[in-house]
């Protein structure tokens, strides 16, 4: 009897989150997939066919017949989409590299800081992560806009003449700054945890065996921090590809990013089928890095366990 109860309790614990995710995560995806094969229609919802269970099996079959690859063909015909995908990947890649270059020295310094400082430093890195993304991006607008603080500062110290203004806002450069700024904690944290774990006696051993400290960094420290580097890069790259807020607020019309394109397609053109198709392709593009990332994480966990 008790055994029976236990099993029921266990089933309930599994079922509640399982069903929730099925209904609100997996099913919506299937709907996106289905709509991406549908046609735009002037109706609510603005696509056809709509499935309705009332029409029975035949209705379902008829609806399926109406599905088509038109939206995907459309995506290949208009080079806006392909350029958006490529440019998203490129911007995400460049930003990831810059974030790594900025983040590594910070994480390295933190890992070498006296241990009673580290908790505070760690909190200083995490704190911006808790403050709103939108606010942090907004903060940069005030700095980068033509009559903004950067112009004022550069004019004051004489790098710019009083009638000149910086032209950074609404350019891709601003998008880079925004991504690097917003995602820096995602890079620093895994790097820090990898560097902090590094046993100081390894560096001493290298020195003891005749290796110059600078060289020891490249043959010992850096290779051993690679798991952190990989994790940090993926954590920046993957969300950066689908980023919407940063290119929308900081980027200009020439900055193409797929998240922005999807948003415009959905809210401005109200073309739900095409935006669904864009989403499906975006997911396909991201699946490879996501799978690679999960694998790397799993390997790291196994290494730690073993």
């Amino acid at each position, binding site marked *: 009897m*008790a055994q029976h109860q236990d099993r029921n*309790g*266990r089933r309930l*614990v*599994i079922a*509640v*989150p*399982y069903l*929730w*995710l099925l209904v*609100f*995560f*997996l099913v*919506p995806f299937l*709907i*996106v997939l289905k709509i991406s094969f549908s046609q735009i229609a002037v109706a609510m919802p603005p696509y056809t066919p*709509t*499935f309705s269970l009332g029409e029975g099996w035949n209705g379902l079959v008829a609806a399926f017949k109406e599905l088509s690859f038109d939206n995907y063909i459309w995506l290949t015909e208009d080079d806006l989409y392909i350029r958006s995908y490529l440019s998203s990947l490129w911007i995400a890649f460049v930003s990831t590299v810059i974030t790594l270059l*900025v983040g590594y*020295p*910070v994480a*390295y*310094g*933190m890992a*070498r*800081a006296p241990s009673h400082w580290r*908790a505070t430093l760690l909190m*200083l890195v995490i*704190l911006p992560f*808790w*403050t*709103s993304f*939108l*606010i942090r991006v*907004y*903060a*940069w*607008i*005030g*700095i980068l806009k033509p009559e903004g603080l950067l112009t004022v500062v550069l004019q004051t110290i004489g790098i710019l003449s009083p009638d000149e203004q910086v032209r950074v806002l609404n350019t891709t450069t601003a998008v880079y700054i925004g991504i690097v*700024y917003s995602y*820096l904690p995602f890079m620093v944290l895994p790097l820090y945890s990898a560097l902090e774990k590094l*046993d*100081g006696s390894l560096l001493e051993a290298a020195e003891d065996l005749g290796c110059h400290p600078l060289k020891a960094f490249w043959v010992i420290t850096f290779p051993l921090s690679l798991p952190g580097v990989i994790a940090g890069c993926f954590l920046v790259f993957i*969300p950066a590809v*689908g*980023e919407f*807020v940063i290119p929308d607020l900081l980027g200009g019309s020439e900055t193409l990013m797929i*998240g922005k394109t*999807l*948003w415009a397609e*959905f809210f401005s053109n109200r073309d*739900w089928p095409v*935006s*669904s198709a864009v*989403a499906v392709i*975006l*997911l396909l593009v*991201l699946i490879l890095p*996501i799978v690679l990332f999960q694998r790397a994480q799993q390997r790291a966990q196994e290494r730690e366990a073993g």
Partner: protein
Amino acid sequence: MNRGPSWFNITSMVMGFAFLYLPILILIIFSFNESRLVTVWAGFSTKWYGELFRNEGLMDAAWVTARVAFVSASIATVLGTLAAITLVRFGRFHGRTLFSGMVYAPLVMPEVITGLSLLLLFVAVNFDRGFWTVVIAHITFSMCFVAVVVQSRLVSFDASVEEAAMDLGCPPGKTFFVITLPIILPAVISGWMLAFTLSLDDLVIASFTTGPGATTLPMKIYSQVRLGVTPEINAVCTILIALVTIGVVTASIVTKRQEIERKRAEAAAVRADEPQQV
């Protein structure tokens, strides 16, 4: 690493943290600016805060956001904790791979996709969009973050403690409430806080899933930001930053205190164990 930082380390850290904090600091400073211009300092004033509280649209949005964040964080914490227990304690079961995939995927899913897909679901089932649709959307993605946070705590604690409780006659359900939950409580609380701030911050998913009468604060800020930088927005942002900072700093001080307390107790216990040396 046990050796002290070099000048290079210190410089790079100072520059890194300056990069992280200067923009926020500037934003806060200019929220107290007398002038409407956000680049020229014209004296200290709190008038924009006053204006803020008279702005009914913003206040409504803030109230909606707070309610959404509270409700969604609370439900997400329950669901996320259950998901974490399922993943850590229940071993293999039918559909486990799919389940763990669904828990981890939202963490890296672009928000535009999550938002779009949920909206399409609500449209497909003809669910009236508004407060509850935003709550559901926020629960769905933040429960996964809660699950990860709680999971890491569950993994690191010894399951034999639970077994001991059951060995002493405590049924599994009760064991969870009297043994497991108290031990993982710090993780559950920080999971809740994470879910709360995620919901507070979210713009993209809320924009997709919201309906009439449920405009959240980030959406309001976003629509104003598009029109340009204003001191009111700086003021709103400053308040939000202050709230989050107080929350995070308090939480970390509390955990640090507990840690120091624990370490001190451990050290004392170790000393008590040592034989008295001559």
